[in-house]
């Protein structure tokens, strides 16, 4: 049969993911695009904000349906491991979506614009409560920050164990280093539960 190419005997790669979160316009898509080996793709997810789980014509008018866009890219780690990066909207009402997204994630990078930090409170709060390893990365637009990192830490009220770094979302190696900080957090979390 010449219909299909024979499948790779090793099977598909094992996917892992890191969430890139933050408020609108802080540079999530730029972050994903800087390190992804494919141009970032956008997928849309439909959120039903009320009456989730109810699908009945009579309740249709009570539902508010919102479509949220999510950008993602990927990095091939080795033959059998592929890292996906998902840029997710940061607003509180998308918490439902985040529960689906962060399931199985290695960790999260919360991207912050230091001139409007209030945009990332929801994300920081969410990952803290969900117990997801995360780091805060302040996107240094034009190479400078409005506030220093100690001020950012104070403003966000994150505890000392959460790393806060500056990075440039446009620079591949800068994004790489920020992701490594997230993974170091994940490593610390993974160690005690090592089972063998």
């Amino acid at each position, binding site marked *: 049969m010449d219909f299909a190419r024979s499948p790779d005997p090793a099977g*598909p*790669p*094992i996917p892992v993911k890191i969430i890139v979160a933050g408020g609108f316009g802080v540079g999530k898509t730029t972050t994903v695009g800087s390190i992804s080996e494919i141009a970032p793709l956008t*997928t849309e997810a*439909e959120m039903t904000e009320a009456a989730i789980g109810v699908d009945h014509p009579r309740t249709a008018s009570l539902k508010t349906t919102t479509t949220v866009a*999510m950008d993602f890219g990927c990095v091939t780690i080795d033959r059998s491991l592929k890292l996906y990066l998902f840029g997710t909207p940061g607003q509180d009402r998308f918490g439902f979506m985040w529960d689906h997204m962060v399931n*199985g994630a290695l960790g999260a990078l919360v991207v912050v614009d230091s001139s409007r930090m209030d945009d990332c409170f929801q994300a920081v709060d969410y990952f803290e409560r969900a117990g997801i390893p995360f780091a805060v990365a302040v996107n240094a637009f034009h190479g400078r920050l409005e506030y220093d990192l100690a001020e950012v830490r104070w403003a966000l009220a994150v505890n000392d164990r959460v790393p806060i770094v500056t990075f440039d979302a446009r620079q*591949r190696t800068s994004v790489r280093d920020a992701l490594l900080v997230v*993974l170091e957090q994940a490593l610390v979390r*993974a160690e005690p539960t090592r089972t063998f």
Partner: protein
Amino acid sequence: MSGERHGRPDPEPIGRIPPYLRLPPAGAPPAGTPGREPAERSAAPRPFVLTAGRVNAIDPEIDVETQVTLRPHDPRVGRVPVASLGPEMQAMVAMCREPTSVAEISARLRLHLGVTKILVADLRAAGYLDVHVADTLNPLSYDTILRVMHGLRAIS
């Protein structure tokens, strides 16, 4: 042993095959994609028209990064012909000759994520796709994280 079963998901259909993808008992043609009613012609169809309005039948195991591949056809297991699948499903079958993530299928076919998950689950039940859910169960081991770090450090 032919080695054919190496790491392969169970060839049994997983999940319930939706009626429109079942082989007809007496040779009647399959019903075709659900929701293809004249009523949808008015404007752009709403996203969940493609799933016949199902929004809750999402297999919780299917995640955004879950890898999907074409299932090699086993002639002993009947399945509806490709031509009877809807255009979106045919496109999915074509894409999945290479391992593809659910998110990528959704983005490239411009389908909502929720719609994509339902159609992927349908095609899995119908015997067209393998959904590699077991591979995503515990990617969070110490060794996996170290491998990812190692791979990232190689980026310059």
